[in-house]
């Protein structure tokens, strides 16, 4: 009975999706829309199947950039948040910086990064991802380390606990849900950043470059195959982060408010 009910719950998105695809396919057929204008879903599917190896290679390049940047950004963000907690003065300085980084199109520094590194290097894109992930993680984890409930602090003080004991037994466990929230935001963001960074020059491997080159030669169905690859990559990072969160939420009863 329960399974039937959950099946009933997921029909709207499936139906909407199918209807959308069918309408798309029909319009292309009825109006005889040329491939270079807008390919039909079936054309895309066959292009995807036909170019699977190439798409996969491009996915690996962009995906690797996203993954490396993500992992480094998270580690760096955690490390610096500890420093920030120790020296709260630095905290006051980094907050306006973090707000500004969020407000400006920071990806635009990639051309400069490309000049700074040897040609053919993927490092500029990885640096970009690190930068963006770092700030997301930093802001959230710093918040988690700082915002311990008043009752908990009074309790620990009543135990005459040392600063180190307070850190280990209270601040760090408090910050862990914040870390996972940050990772949930940063994971898809790392894919998007790695992807967008490819538009700003640099070595021509990866999904973004493949899309641009196929678009310029009007091979739209092949281009869409890469687009599909990009979507799948982004979704997989997102699903991985959700799974990671679910694996730990059993231990913690709540999810803190998100900060971007």
């Amino acid at each position, binding site marked *: 009975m329960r399974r039937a009910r959950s099946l009933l719950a997921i029909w709207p*998105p499936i139906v*909407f999706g199918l209807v959308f695809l069918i309408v798309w396919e029909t319009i292309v057929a009825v109006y005889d829309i040329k491939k270079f204008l*807008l390919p039909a879903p079936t054309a895309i599917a066959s292009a995807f199947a036909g170019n699977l190896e190439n798409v996969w290679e491009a996915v690996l390049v962009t995906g690797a950039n996203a993954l490396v940047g993500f992992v480094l950004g998270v580690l760096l963000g955690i490390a610096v948040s500890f420093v920030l907690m120790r020296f709260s003065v630095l905290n006051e300085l980094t907050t306006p910086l973090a707000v500004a980084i969020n407000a400006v*199109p920071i990806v*635009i520094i990639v051309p400069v990064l490309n*000049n700074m590194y040897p040609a053919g290097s993927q490092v500029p894109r990885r640096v970009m991802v690190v930068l963006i992930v770092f700030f997301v993680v930093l802001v959230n984890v710093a918040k988690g380390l700082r915002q311990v409930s008043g009752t908990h602090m009074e309790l620990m003080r009543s135990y005459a606990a040392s600063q180190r004991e307070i850190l280990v037994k209270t601040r760090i466990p408090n910050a862990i849900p914040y870390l996972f929230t940050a990772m949930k935001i940063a994971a898809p963001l790392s894919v998007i950043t790695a992807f967008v960074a490819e*538009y700003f020059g640099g070595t021509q491997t990866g999904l973004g470059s493949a899309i641009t080159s196929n*678009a310029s030669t009007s091979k739209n169905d092949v281009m869409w195959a890469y687009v599909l690859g990009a979507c799948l990559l982004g979704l997989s990072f997102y699903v991985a982060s959700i799974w990671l969160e679910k694996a730990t939420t059993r231990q913690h009863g709540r999810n803190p408010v998100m900060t971007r």
Partner: protein
Amino acid sequence: MIRQAARRSSLFVVALAAVAATWELYKVVGPETGGEVFGWAILPKSNDRVMPHTWEMIAEFFDSETRGTPLVWQAVLGYAWFTFRLALFGLFVGTVVGVGLAILMARFRVMERGLLPYVIASQTVPLIALAPQIATIAGNWGLPRWAWVSILGAFLAFFPISIAMLKGLSSAPDAAVELMDSYAASWWTTLVKLRLPASMGYLVPGMKLAATASVIGVIVSEISTGLAGGIGRATLQYAAKATSEPAQVYTALIGAGALGLLLYGFVVAMEFALMRNRPQEATG
């Protein structure tokens, strides 16, 4: 609140100065042609061509763009303004469509259940991948190039706004909704008098996200559609001139940063006007 803003701005200036100081420090200690750490080439080059001094960047603004043409600061201002207007328009369209879709989803639960998963999923994939496709379609409809670019900004902006707005529309406390019911108010009246005002606190942070998204969308589609006159194209052009005019690309970066802050500031000003008599915006 003004005092808080002044304090934050001055701290921002100090933070910038710290960044500039780190920059100069790296120029002193960093390897001229790049270096390796444990065998990975991750240290950037620090020579004057690739990393000009911070004061050289400022000085570049008062140089001429290329021989015998307008000064750099005028050129960059023009490019930044061009992109800013497209991003602003994109933000506006994205907000209207996003709010509209949110209202639709709030009204018809079927729409919410059917569309919301896609809206959420769209936040996780690089939508900008669709830029060339959208450009082709828009071009075929005879829309001017700037419109395609703006549409892409709107496209990226509308997703965070619809998610934020949907949350906001359902944030009205149950007691308030019951009150409206007791007045026999129609769904539409409840929307206008209760849910929309209640959702402002959620709309604002959504618009902050959307503003950045719109700017990035516009810049990237400028590049991929080859639209001239904007800061995106200008940055790439200046970057290519790294040997002859090393500091120029940095002026474009500063311009891009300024336009992003300007649009963000626009949203903050809107927040101030709308939320003046209310407690701070809801987070999340």
